[in-house]
């Protein structure tokens, strides 16, 4: 079948403003949008710039705004999309070219919450294994699924308005460690998230939960972190 696409293109060296360009490609209804974008790049417009790597919904490279909604191009089938399919870069981050945005501000929020295991050898003998029960593991299971695609953060209206907000993805990754029984850095992270650009910037718009291609209950995780920050400051 013929698939019509309208892709937002922008080359900062030659274009004043981003503009839509229309393409028609031949594709099977069961093919993914990423396949169509490949066909554009390989057969029609080799200059089209987009990020993709694994093409199977794991690496998180190809988040884009598809018909107005944040999705991974490699996880959505052509048959499920209304044509012409509008493809735009994710919002709230500076566009470098076409569908590629500068991810640095996104990873700045991620790094701010110290997304690694913090251990305190005074509390735990570093030479002994730290046992974790299945129940303790279950506590943060949902937030381990994050692939850092930025679909949640770039769907957040507060992130669009205030670039200092760390964003939902950073809070999800903080949640993953705050509720990990082996981690000793919870209080440190909650202090960071209690800052002016931290977790209390969330207004529970729920856009993040709707956008997450991994089905993480993002807003719920954020609310759990808020509650933890409250009890931590008692």
């Amino acid at each position, binding site marked *: 079948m013929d698939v019509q696409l309208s892709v937002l293109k922008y080359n900062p060296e030659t274009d004043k403003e981003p503009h839509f360009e229309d393409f028609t490609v031949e594709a099977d209804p069961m093919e993914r949008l990423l396949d169509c974008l490949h066909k554009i790049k390989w057969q029609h417009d080799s200059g089209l710039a987009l990020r993709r790597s694994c093409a199977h919904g794991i690496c998180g490279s190809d988040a884009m705004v598809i018909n107005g909604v944040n999705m991974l191009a490699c996880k959505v089938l052509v048959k499920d999309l209304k044509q012409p399919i509008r493809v735009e870069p994710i919002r709230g981050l500076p566009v470098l070219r076409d569908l590629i945005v500068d991810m640095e501000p996104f990873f700045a929020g991620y790094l701010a919450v110290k997304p690694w295991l913090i251990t305190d050898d005074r509390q735990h003998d570093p030479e002994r294994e730290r046992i974790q029960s299945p129940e303790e593991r279950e506590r943060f299971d949902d937030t381990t699924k994050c692939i850092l695609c930025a679909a949640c953060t770039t769907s957040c209206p507060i992130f669009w308005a205030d670039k*200092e907000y760390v964003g939902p993805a*950073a809070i999800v990754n903080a949640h993953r460690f705050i509720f990990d029984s082996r981690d000793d850095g919870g209080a440190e992270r909650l202090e960071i998230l209690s800052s002016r650009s931290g977790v*209390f910037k969330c207004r529970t718009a729920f856009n993040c939960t709707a956008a997450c291609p991994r089905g993480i209950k993002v807003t719920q995780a954020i609310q759990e972190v808020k509650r933890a920050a409250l009890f931590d*400051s008692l």
Partner: protein
Amino acid sequence: MATVEDIYRKHKPTAFEADRRPSSTEVWWWFFMRISGVVLVFLVLIHVYVMHVVGAGVERVDFAFVVERWDSIGWKSFDWIMLFLALLHGGNGVRIIIDDYIHRDGLRATIKGSLYALILILMIMGTAVIVTFNPATAG
């Protein structure tokens, strides 16, 4: 040499400067909004019912009605608590919107200062009316 953190720090300076106070104000404002929101739902519904639904509704509200109502310390307290919570809840909501959308420090400080002044004035005026209301000298 600039580290990755140095590079990223410029994007989110406030996130990297954690709130070191023992209890962050944002935590408590968030908690206040939760509690006051729930309380206000009941206060406002009771207010609307009493003032606008019962009997002839708002048509019957006149000076005599106010005199009779504010003869009771219970209704005075009710009205004052509603005034207090509504001004703080609403005012904090507007502060949050200002913080989200106004990024120039000077302008933000000016607008927030005006907001706080307005809330304070309304709080003082409302409190004065409720506390000093005396049917013998009023009207």
